[in-house]
């Protein structure tokens, strides 16, 4: 008897509840099948009644069922419970760290804004040597307000000196490149002069060229009182888009002190020479003293001139403003369909960025859960089948 014959004989016997095969051996098999089925255990009537009632009632839940299930899980499957706790902790850690890194990146971007604003001034301030730290202080105020929040506030520095060094002499300069609209070039030029006047500054040189083509532009060489430099730069920066902004500081305290000391010495020497001249015994001696006084006078003039120049340079900052006009087409970023499209693109990029971050966290968690789930199913099946071994 082959598999097919056996199967058909069994099915026929079970369906008809009779052994009706003609072949004695086959009939014997069918009788065996029916005997096995007839020998199957029957449920106790009382139990059947109780279960019928429970089914009819929709299997009402017993009190404390959840607690019992947890207790059963802890006692019968402690490994599974431990695995669940470990997985939960791992997921919590991943979420916490992902959230933490997200916050960090936000601070980082704020920090990068500060670095960006400082980048323009960095090369020049570096070359200015010791004055660089003093000059870096005002820079954050020109950056975005968000950036200034992220940077801890440094020790306040008085304009024109280092920390704790009010009498130091610092020569300052700044360079601004503004990009006004091409048709507003003249107006912006007028406003540059107005700002200079407002802060008691001086326009040493200026040139504004308005042309239809690419030849238009302008530049200004200004002198702004050092005390007014920062507010003046702030107002100048507000006149148009700032393409670049550079600030320099140069400490000239040493040459200033040296020149002043030398001038004092020369004045003292001159006074001494004048006294000696009053008491000169001979004409020859008087002539020698006068010659010396003339030399000292020349030196006094030179030192006074140097001091005056230093005083002027430290009292007034040199500010260079360059106007590089731009076309309205490129400038109208805030209106129109193009602007809307750009805003839409930016929003989409931001959304994709957020989506990727979420995916970056959710995907490993989902994979972990799926793997744990599959492993749990596989282990359960193996354990169950082992009961039949």
């Amino acid at each position, binding site marked *: 008897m082959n*598999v097919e014959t056996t*199967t058909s004989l069994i099915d026929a016997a079970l369906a008809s509840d009779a052994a009706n095969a003609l072949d004695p051996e086959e009939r014997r098999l069918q009788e065996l*099948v029916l*005997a096995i089925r007839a*020998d199957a*255990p*029957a449920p106790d009537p009382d139990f059947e009644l109780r279960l019928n009632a429970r089914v009819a009632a929709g*299997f009402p839940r017993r009190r404390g069922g959840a607690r019992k299930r947890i207790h059963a899980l802890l006692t019968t499957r402690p490994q599974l419970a431990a695995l669940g706790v470990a997985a939960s902790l791992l997921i919590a850690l991943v979420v916490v760290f992902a959230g933490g890194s997200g916050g960090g990146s936000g601070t980082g971007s704020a920090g990068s804004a500060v670095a960006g604003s400082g980048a323009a001034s960095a090369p020049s301030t570096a070359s200015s040597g010791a004055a660089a730290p003093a000059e870096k202080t005002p820079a954050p105020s020109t950056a975005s307000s968000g950036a200034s929040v992220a940077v801890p506030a440094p020790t306040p520095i008085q304009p024109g000196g280092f920390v704790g060094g009010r009498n130091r002499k610092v020569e300052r300069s700044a360079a601004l490149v503004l990009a006004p609209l091409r048709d507003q070039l003249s107006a912006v030029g007028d406003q540059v002069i107005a700002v200079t006047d407002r802060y008691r500054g001086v326009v040493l040189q200026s040139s504004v060229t308005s042309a239809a083509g690419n030849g238009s532009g302008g530049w200004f060489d200004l002198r702004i009182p050092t005390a007014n430099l920062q507010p003046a730069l702030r107002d100048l920066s507000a006149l148009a888009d700032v393409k670049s902004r550079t600030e320099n500081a140069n400490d000239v305290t040493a040459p200033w002190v040296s020149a002043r000391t030398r001038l004092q010495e020369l004045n003292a020497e001159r006074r001494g020479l004048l006294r000696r001249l009053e008491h000169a015994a001979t004409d020859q001696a008087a002539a020698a003293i006068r010659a010396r006084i003339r030399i000292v006078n020349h030196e006094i003039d030179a030192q006074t001139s140097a001091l005056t120049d230093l005083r002027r340079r430290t009292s007034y900052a040199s500010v260079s403003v360059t106007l590089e006009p731009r076309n309205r087409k490129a400038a109208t970023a805030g209106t129109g369909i193009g602007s809307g499209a750009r805003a839409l693109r930016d929003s989409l990029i931001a959304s994709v960025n957020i989506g990727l971050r979420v995916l970056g966290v959710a995907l490993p968690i989902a994979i972990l859960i799926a793997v744990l789930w599959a492993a749990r199913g596989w282990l359960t099946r193996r354990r169950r089948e082992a*009961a039949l071994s």
Partner: protein
Amino acid sequence: VNDAPTEAVTASTVALSTAEGFEDLYRATFPRVYAYVASLLRDRAAAEDVAAVAFERAYRKRGRFSPRRGSAEAWVFGIARNAALDELRRLKRRATLEAETADVWSPSPHEEAERSFTREEVRTALASLEPRERDLVALKFAGGLTNVEIARVLGISETNVGSRLHRAVEKLRKACHR
């Protein structure tokens, strides 16, 4: 003990989402599920517990049943088998599986006198089977499942079910001829 197959088929096609549909399935399968579980566990009390647990689980999970993954009966027998194997494992761990004495059969004295020879032969033959073979035989003869349904429950192919069943029946025949 066994209900008509047509009744079972009807029950398997009933929508399980309603309480009435589940009751129909329960009525059609309960005696066979009990017979199968008792054959596997060989312990009346344990069989009652497992049958009750199996139907309660099926009731709670009835929303998850999908006809595409097999009949409702195969689904219920799968749940019952899992519960029975869990119980079997627990019983083995407690070392109380002295069920070879098998208290699940309690026929009337009249029936006993009428079919004692055959029953003795059958029990001896069944005892000679491997546990996995006994599981298969119980699904087929006590549970009344088709080979397709058994394949679903055990997670093997229908052909494999036929082959295993053939081998098990051959063993039973040889055991009965001794």
